[in-house]
């Protein structure tokens, strides 16, 4: 097994055996969706228009909570330090953590989408698989930026750590905006979806490549 595959398997195995991050994130998803379900307008058309915003609000909060949990766990136990003792380029460690986080975030996205369909109307109609695919594609960039930022923030003292973590949504506005545009275009059957998807893919690649490069630079 390659070191990268070993890192991904470790990430998933540790989380699945403890369920600490995933259960908390799933509960947060459910709580936020319920909150939005009972506080938003009863106007179906308005709610349909808000679908991308609802999904992104939920995924951003719950997803970043999950990524923060995995990063802090490595720091608290000293396992992150153990990984840094391995004879691997730092970029490999970053990519391993990113891939593990992407799997966890994808699971959370599936769950959030399922809850959304249950609690709200399926605003996307028969295009719901495309909407889900857009969200999963966005998870690539979210997990890349989230992994990099949470790894950088984990060793920092309280206020600095919190400040860094709260900066993640600012860092991610590019991915979120492209994803929102793609979802809106899907809802309105707009031709602009191709441009939005291209932008989303480019942002994903930029965050992934940038994360790997910055990890090497920090060594």
């Amino acid at each position: 097994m390659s070191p990268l595959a070993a890192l991904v398997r470790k990430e998933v195995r540790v989380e699945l055996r403890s369920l600490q991050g995933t259960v908390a994130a799933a509960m947060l998803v459910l709580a936020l969706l319920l909150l939005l379900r009972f506080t938003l307008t009863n106007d179906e058309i308005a709610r349909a228009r808000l679908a991308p915003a609802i999904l992104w609000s939920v995924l951003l909060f719950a997803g970043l909570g999950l990524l923060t949990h995995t990063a802090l766990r490595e720091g608290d136990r000293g396992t992150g330090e153990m990984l840094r003792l391995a004879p691997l380029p730092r970029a490999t460690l970053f990519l391993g953590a990113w891939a593990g986080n992407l799997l966890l975030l994808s699971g959370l996205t599936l769950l959030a989408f399922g809850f959304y369909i249950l609690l709200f109307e399926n605003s996307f109609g028969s295009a719901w698989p495309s909407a889900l695919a857009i969200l999963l594609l966005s998870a690539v960039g979210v997990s890349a930026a989230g992994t990099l930022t949470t790894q950088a923030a984990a060793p920092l003292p309280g206020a600095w750590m919190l400040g860094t973590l709260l900066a993640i949504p600012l860092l991610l506005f590019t991915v979120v905006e492209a994803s929102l545009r793609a979802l809106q275009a899907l809802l309105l059957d707009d031709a602009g979806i191709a441009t939005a998807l291209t932008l989303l893919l480019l942002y994903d690649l930029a965050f992934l490549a940038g994360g790997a490069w910055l990890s090497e630079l920090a060594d």
Partner: protein
Amino acid sequence: MLAVRELQKAFGARRVLRGLDLSVADGEVVLLQGENGAGKSTLLRILATLDRADSGEAEVDSFALSDGVEVRARIGFAGHRPGFYGELSGRENLALWAQLHQLPEHSAEIDATLERVGLKAFADDRTGIYSRGMLQRLALARATLHQPTTLLLDEPFAALDSAGRKLLRTLISEWRDDGRAVLVVAHGSGLAADRTLALANGVLA
């Protein structure tokens, strides 16, 4: 072989290492002592590439510390924090380490290492239920699993019972006989080192 020249490290205004020179030859055990806060752990962390020195040079088997991948392949490090995944068993933690080092066919080696440190009966238990002493034994197993040429051990006797301390002294003796360079930070360990050095005010006294 380990060679350190003019190593300097400061944390803010506090200068911890002030131009430290040190060498540990192959097949030599060096015991490093000093008061709390003298900079012993900082030195080991720099040599393990976990921290960066402000200036100076250090080499492991002629590889400069800036060549992190090569250096890390040659060192075995056991620090203050064991650093194991509590959800994984002792065997799984070591298997992860072997995979990160790309060791081929590591199952037999892991079994042998676990037996050597007295943990074979607990190999499939999750490390979350290990005692501090058991974690220390596992950390020693991990430090040597990839057959490093240089061992950096920071307070390795801590938390070990008398049998564990005796075992560790035997292991260190074996590593010396295997031709490895061993740098140990310890106090009152009863370790028969080839040289004992004292770190004070950032330099070797």
